[in-house]
């Protein structure tokens, strides 16, 4: 069983290695990518069941016990997020293959796309599973390096320029992360998360706050927390739809996961809830207002992404088992729905030839399927019942309502941000799907199949998007067992004992 825990990390690397070696066999590359991700999905599902039944599954790599070697830990939270992330990654891969950004035409393979896509998945898996702060850094490096390539790949100078904002901010955040690790090691002498839990507790409170703040800022950049969010709306919208979908779905959530893990495990209780509450409010409001001010569909969705990061920060700030559980549930919901929206946005922009919602119109009549594919995730994001967004938001609100006056007030902002979200998606709806028909804009760059400007869409792109819509409906339908798991996961996070015992014995 414990060997299984390594597979989500190592299988994609193996797949990437083979993919690089068989660089000329496009079909083989696609096959490798899909097989590997399906396998990881299965493994993640098995891990989730195992972790839920018998407690965290731990593997000591190389057989070295915890503080000496690196441990990978699949507890309820990490296994659950791993599962949903891989499912989304798989759907995005199918979409990407069909959009033909994965290669150069049907028969020519690319050295970069498939290996790097798989390695991105490795980074995400490792970030979820690792029980070691430095390993987490490595995971982030893999993830970010892969994302730099994907965001600037097969592109032109204009897009590279906007990608540069992302790269430079991310590098800065990596630098900050490294500094943080150095400072943590300097004061405690260990980088194992479980070991840190005990050693940080022995530090004076002021220094604990210092380290906690450092991690909040470090991971806050990855999570696009206001005021560290500006890179996101400036860079994501320019990447091809599947790439943006993957980034929006996974990368920011990995930041939130890292925050959740470190704040609950290493800085429990003494956590700066007030600071996080304020940051959560800022993130929700600034993001939602940003979305209202946009005319570019992808930028609008990016701002909504920022806004909903605030929801997850809120659950974290509540700092109890229900808050943690709510955040976990919200992450699961949001990974799916945000990725779906970007994929659908890709379909919309391909069909209309523009990203400007003012230049679209009447799409509901011309393409009812697209209207449904947009409406369902849009309502889900706005948290209209009975979607998964409602269930997840309810979990957060319940956590907030049972907390202090402060958390109740912030719960009010959650509700406000939901309203603004709905407003934003309704604006998209009335401009894009209602109104007079507008002719698709001519394709001004036929070579460029990446972002917009071609009406070529095919069934698998729709199927992949629809599959993700189905996943988010399934999340709502399975809200019972799912919320039970996240509740237990939240309790585990706050209790800490299961994790510590599993790792340190």
């Amino acid at each position, binding site marked *: 069983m414990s060997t299984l825990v390594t597979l989500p990390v190592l299988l994609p690397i193996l797949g990437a290695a083979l993919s690089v070696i068989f660089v000329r066999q496009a079909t083989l590359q696609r096959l490798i990518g899909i097989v590997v991700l399906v396998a990881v999905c299965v493994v993640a599902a098995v891990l989730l069941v195992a972790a839920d039944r018998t407690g965290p599954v731990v593997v000591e790599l190389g057989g070295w016990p915890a503080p000496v070697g690196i441990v990978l830990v699949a507890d309820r939270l990490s296994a659950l997020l791993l599962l949903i992330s891989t499912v989304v990654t798989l759907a995005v891969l199918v979409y990407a293959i069909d959009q033909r950004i994965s290669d150069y035409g049907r028969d020519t393979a690319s050295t970069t796309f498939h290996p790097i896509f798989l390695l991105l998945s490795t980074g995400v898996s490792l970030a979820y599973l690792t029980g070691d702060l430095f390993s987490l850094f490595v995971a982030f490096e*893999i993830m970010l390096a892969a994302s730099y390539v994907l965001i600037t790949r097969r592109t032109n100078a204009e897009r590279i320029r906007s990608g540069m904002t992302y790269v430079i901010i991310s590098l800065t955040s990596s630098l900050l992360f490294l500094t943080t690790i150095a400072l943590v090691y300097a004061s405690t002498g260990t980088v194992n998360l479980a070991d840190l839990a005990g050693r940080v507790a022995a530090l004076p409170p002021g220094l604990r706050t210092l380290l906690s703040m450092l991690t909040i800022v470090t991971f806050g950049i990855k999570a696009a927390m206001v005021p560290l969010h500006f890179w996101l709306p400036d860079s994501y919208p320019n990447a091809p739809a599947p790439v943006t979908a993957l980034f929006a779905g996974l990368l920011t959530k990995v930041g939130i996961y890292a925050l959740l893990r470190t704040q609950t495990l290493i800085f429990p209780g003494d956590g700066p809830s007030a600071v996080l509450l304020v940051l959560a409010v800022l993130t929700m409001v600034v993001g939602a207002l940003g979305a209202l001010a946009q005319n570019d569909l992808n930028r609008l969705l990016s701002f909504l992404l920022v806004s909903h990061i605030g929801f997850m920060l809120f659950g974290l700030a509540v700092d109890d088992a229900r808050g943690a559980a709510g955040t976990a549930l919200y992450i699961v919901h949001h990974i799916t729905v945000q990725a779906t929206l970007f994929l659908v946005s890709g379909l919309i922009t391909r069909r209309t030839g523009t990203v400007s919602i003012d230049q679209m119109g009447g799409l509901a009549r011309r393409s009812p399927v697209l209207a449904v594919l947009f409406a369902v995730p849009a309502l889900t994001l706005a948290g209209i019942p009975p979607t998964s967004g409602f269930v997840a938001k309810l979990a957060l609100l319940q956590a907030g309502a049972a907390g202090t006056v402060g958390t109740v007030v912030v719960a009010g902002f959650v509700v406000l941000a939901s*309203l603004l979200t709905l407003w934003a998606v309704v604006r998209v709806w009335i401009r894009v799907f209602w109104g007079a028909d507008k002719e698709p804009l001519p394709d001004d760059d036929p070579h460029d199949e990446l972002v917009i400007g071609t009406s070529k869409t095919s069934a698998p792109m729709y199927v992949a998007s629809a599959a993700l819509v189905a996943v988010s409906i399934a999340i709502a339908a399975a809200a019972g067992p799912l919320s039970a798991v996240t509740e237990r996961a939240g309790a585990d996070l706050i209790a800490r004992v299961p994790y510590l015992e599993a790792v340190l014995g």
Partner: protein
Amino acid sequence: MLALVVAHLVVAALLPLVSRRSRRAAFGVAAVLPAATLVWGLANLPAVLGPGPAPSETHVWASALHLEFGFRLDALGVVMIVLVGGLGALILAYSAWYFGKDSRDAPRNSALLLAFAGAMLGLVLADDLLTLYLFWELTSIASFLLVGQGGLHRANRRAAVQALLVTVMGGLAMLLGIVIVGESAGTYRISEIVAAAQQGAGPAGGLAATGIVLILIGALTKSAQFPFHPWLPGAMAAPTPVSAYLHAASMVKAGVVLVGRLSPAFADRSYWWVPIAVLGLVTMLVGGWRALHETDLKRLLAFGTVSQLGFLMVLFGSGDRIGEIAALTMLLAHGLFKAPLFMVVGIVDKVTGTREVGALSGLGRRLPGLAAAATLAAASMAGIPFLLGFLGKEAAFEAFVHDGDWVLALGLLLGSIFTVAYSARFLWGAFATKAGVEATEPRPVVPGLSVPTWIAAFTGLVLGCVPPLTDALARNYAAAYPAEDAVAADYHLALWHGLSLPLLFSAVALIVGATLHLQRARVTGLHTALRHPLSAQRGYEVTVGGIERFAVWVTGRIQAGSLPVYLGVLLLTVLVLPGLALVFGGTLPATVPGYGSLMQLPLGLVIVACAAALTRVRRRFTAVLLVGAIGYAIGGLFVVDGGPDLALAQFLVETLTMVAFVFVLRRLPAHFDAGPRVGRGIQLRKAALATVAGVFVAVAAVVLSGARQEPPAVSGEFVARAPEAGADNVIAAILVDFRALDTVGEITVLLIAAAGTASLVLATRHDKKGKSGRVESGGGTPEHEEEIAG
């Protein structure tokens, strides 16, 4: 009950298939389920009115979140089923002829109307606050789509958005309120909350009060109470059957129903009944007053609905036995008279092509049947005896007169006067022969339109003549409220209560109302004289516009689009959050050694000097050399500290980096881009920020190193276990054994970097500037493919 609701939604989803065959048949199929619901509801009447517990059922959805479908059928539910199911079936039948055979709107409307009926049914049966909320929002979405229609017209779009924003705003406030109340009560079950509250164990405290008020906001917005009411007249942009069903008979009642469900628990709390009474009364008066001046028959009815909803709100919020009897009666009566009135407007619109009061004349003579139905319904609205409306209004006056609540009693009287006046105005406007207006020539009315109208109007008459039918339901519902004395306990709906004050009130309302209608020219003059710029609609527009402008302003300020600004904010955040923590929580260790080994001093000096010089150089190549020098010096520090492996790697990497830089530099200008001149102040600020950030990291390092309590957990272990790993060299053991995973991870990063560089460099090589000046990607060209795959 869930099965019934789900059946509605499933059939609605399949309805487009029927529409493809025949659009009329689709409405016919759609009407079956609401009719079945009505039958089901009436069949359950004995169980509801009997002594046993009301029929209920529960389906758990997510127990961890208290999320379940809880349903219960009580008297209020039965009345609403008459409106939702009974009127629903009639209106769907009416729609089959309203939207012609080939209407493109028909398929959408049949499916959405049926889906709405399902959601509304779930809402009225819900005995669980979360279940109620779920269906509540679904009706809002259905309303949005039904008002917007195909979204072709600006009026539809605006009205749909306004209705959605206002009701969802209330709905979300309500959700928060529900969660607060549910958490403090420990249950979301309405019947349990009510039972607990009646035993004095309801949710208490300031938080719970906030929650209750938030729930109330939801109810007020959904039932179009002042100042949220303008969305309802706006929603008249929808087709008339939609208005009749959603915006008269059923959906707008949701707020009133919610108040009716919760009043048994909260009616004695001032923060519950005061806003309800005040806003309800104001709504009744404002709506009635506005209705007196509308020239569009549909808008006239819409303001009439607003007014009546205010009336219902006051009654349901009263918490008084008689008042609640009146409330339930009026709820039923309003549905039964307002829906047919809307249907009449729809017919008039259909056969004459207009709904303007000023354009219609002599219609009463040409369409006597329709006029009779309209008169029946309007008479019920005005509260004329033998009609259901009269019974309700009598009871309402009795309730407040009996309590000596004169403010409310007189307020309702004024409202009723307006009601009588606009009822008369409606009949006059639609059917009267007007001097100076050419008689309207209507097309014939098909029975498909008139029969449902007649059925609805006639039901009001039957129920009005046979009070015990309604009385049983109303008394059953009102039994949940305490009766203050024997009169209240024994009150029954009846046509004749003897000569009493309420009867006088009714008479006054009729007489004064009629007079008001006859004096309409003066009333309109008064209305014009009172014209002022303040209105609730304007308030909505200013708010929405303001938020949109604010959003643009905020985003423009924050999203500067400049990398230096972003980096500056990032550093500033580091300084504010962890920086302040350091200032307030850190203590410098007692002794800080200046250096560990003497060689560190010159190396450190080199690093500092090169770093300082870097900020001033203008030539790229020099900058690269300086960076290299820093790297080598750091390698030197590794040597001094006894890490030859690290040093070796550092030197090699540094060398390779320099080579890579040289390759890259040949493509770049020799000097850094001067860019626009930045002021000295900005430069100084940047320098200060960078310096402070650097100092912060240095101080944090010193403070945190000094705070270490015990030796590193792993260093000793690494040395002790290295031979176990088969290595004399500890570093090697760490790299390939203890932390082999990190090594694997880092080499994948290198692979990514190399592949990424190749993709980036080779991809951009083939880019061309197009004719338009736009850069065209060369990514798809054959040369590029060859190169990248090589």
